[in-house]
């Protein structure tokens, strides 16, 4: 793929001394690498904040009965945990990858719209502050805490909820603007700044995954923004969009929310599905298998993801033909996804595989995310879903998707590209400890939740019946090991940033792609003269 005929590094790095120092560098930077670093750092901090919240929840669930907190506070923690993990951890991490890697991988000197890039990032901290501020305000007697509706903000609960809902609505608007700015930037960068000779079918799969993601964001974030604006006007300006007493329809909110919410799952995962083939090919020392099939699978998944949303609320009631349509269309998504799985395995087939930390995380990703896919098929079945809906089975399913598929995918990418970004190798020993502790404790946490769900334990409750005690205790022990083992990740990153063995330009023996032609770390201004692809 990276058949570069001319690479000119002349002048690279000669601007490096011109940027400002201290905090002003980070506030005003328009460099894609700086902004990528800020996104990744922000995501890591929010990952720990969101994780701490859910550890408090798991501590409460260690035993039946109310131990540590009141149900209202419990509800606030689970809702804000989800919003933070989705909007402030996973999405910024994926955008951080895009900022760092897309220009390097397509031979572009920077993102096409650098100032918008800066603005897109700096909208995030105030939005995250708005999500968590109501907790602080409640301590001082202002308001009744954060949003307590879960991340779905279902009406009429959200119409009647306290001040925290308004904070969440405002925050979601800002996060949405940030996402749309980032998406526009990624689309125009990929369309217009590719190296000469890099046709769309030579584009790295990571960039393809992000391209589809960016279009999905532009199509669905405005729908979420519209829904929460309507919620706001219902709450404060006398409209009745979701108020049945005023002629509105609360189910309408569910349709609007999930029209965004289901593609959001693919928004979180597509960039990582794009990253995975690069890692697998590198550590199998083979070319990517089925490039074209994977590109068309990404497109198919993107298209299908916007026409299946109502499977999230089968039990709300809808006509039988609609139930059947949403069931079959949901199951249909498993076909392009199966193509991706096949290509990933075929890439490794008979390869000279080695299991450095990024490859270990990629293996964990494939196996555990596969379980998410299989249990998703169970939930897609209308008849079965009637039993599993709103149970811990759903909680287990989407954590297999979003932790094993999402967070572990991010960790795969971080370990894969960190030596390129920092110029230093991370500690393989720490990385392997991190991987094994994460995989074991993740399954300890979430596997019991499948059984809890099958046995009928509903989600979003701070107390439960006695027959659920053992599995909840195991899940909580697993959650604490999982949470604290993530400190190894932070320590490894910190040590790698600070120093360590020098990384070569081509960090991994089997790596292919333009980014590996640049030094590690790459010069502050890279590809000022674009490479030419054969």
């Amino acid at each position: 793929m990276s058949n570069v005929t001319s690479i000119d590094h002349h002048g690279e790095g000669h601007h490096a001394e011109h940027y400002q120092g201290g905090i002003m560098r980070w506030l005003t930077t328009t460099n894609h690498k700086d902004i990528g670093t800020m996104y990744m750092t922000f995501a890591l901090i929010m990952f720990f904040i969101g994780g701490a919240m859910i550890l408090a929840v798991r501590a409460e669930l260690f035993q039946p009965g109310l131990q540590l907190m009141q149900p209202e506070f419990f509800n606030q923690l689970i809702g804000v945990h989800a919003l933070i993990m989705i909007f402030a951890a996973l999405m910024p991490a994926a955008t951080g990858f895009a900022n760092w890697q897309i220009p390097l991988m397509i031979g572009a000197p920077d993102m096409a719209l650098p100032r918008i890039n800066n603005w897109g990032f700096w909208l995030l901290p105030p939005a995250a502050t708005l999500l968590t501020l109501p907790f602080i305000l409640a301590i001082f007697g202002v308001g009744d805490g954060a949003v307590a509706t879960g991340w779905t903000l279902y009406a009429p609960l959200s119409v009647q909820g306290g001040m925290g809902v308004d904070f969440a609505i405002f925050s979601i608007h800002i996060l949405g603007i940030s996402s749309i700015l980032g998406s526009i930037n990624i689309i125009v960068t990929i369309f217009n700044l590719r190296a000469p000779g890099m046709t769309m079918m030579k584009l790295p799969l990571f960039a393809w995954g992000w391209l589809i993601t960016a279009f999905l964001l532009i199509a669905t974030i405005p729908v979420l923004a519209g829904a929460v604006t309507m919620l706001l006007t219902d709450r404060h300006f006398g409209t009745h969009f979701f108020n049945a007493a005023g002629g509105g329809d609360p189910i309408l909110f569910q349709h609007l929310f999930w029209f965004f919410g289901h593609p959001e799952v693919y928004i979180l995962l597509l960039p990582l599905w794009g990253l995975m083939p690069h890692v697998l090919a590198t550590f199998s020392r083979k070319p990517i298998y089925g490039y074209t099939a994977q590109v068309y699978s990404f497109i198919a998944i993107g298209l299908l993801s916007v026409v299946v949303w109502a499977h999230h609320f089968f039990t709300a009631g809808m006509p039988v033909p609609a139930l059947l349509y949403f069931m079959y269309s949901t199951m249909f998504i498993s076909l392009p996804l199966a193509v991706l799985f096949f290509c990933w395995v075929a890439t490794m087939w008979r390869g000279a595989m080695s299991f450095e930390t990024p490859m270990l995380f990629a293996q964990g990703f494939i196996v555990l995310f596969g379980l998410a896919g299989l249990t998703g098929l169970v939930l897609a079945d209308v008849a079965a879903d009637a039993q599993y809906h709103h149970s811990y089975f759903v909680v287990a399913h989407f954590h297999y998707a979003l932790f094993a598929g999402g967070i572990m995918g991010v960790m795969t990418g971080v370990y894969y590209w960190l030596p390129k970004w920092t110029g230093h190798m991370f500690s393989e020993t720490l990385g392997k400890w991190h991987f094994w502790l994460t995989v074991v404790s993740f399954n300890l946490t979430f596997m019991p939740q499948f059984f809890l769900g099958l046995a009928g334990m509903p989600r979003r409750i701070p107390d439960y019946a006695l027959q659920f005690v053992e599995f909840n205790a195991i899940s909580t022990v697993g959650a604490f090991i999982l949470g604290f083992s993530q400190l190894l990740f932070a320590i490894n990153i910190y040590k790698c940033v600070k120093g360590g063995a020098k990384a070569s330009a081509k960090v991994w023996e089997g790596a292919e792609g333009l980014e590996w032609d640049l030094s590690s770390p790459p010069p502050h201004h890279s590809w000022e003269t674009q490479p030419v692809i054969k």
Partner: protein
Amino acid sequence: MTTPSERLEAAAELDRRRAASRRLAWVLGAVALAIYALGFIYYRS
């Protein structure tokens, strides 16, 4: 190594591409705004 004239040409080409990027960005932004407004227009009618 590239010559100075080739580098100037590359810089000009990059400027053209950035201008095309800005135009496309406006179109994509307008699409996003239109989707946002669609629901309100639909419910007002």
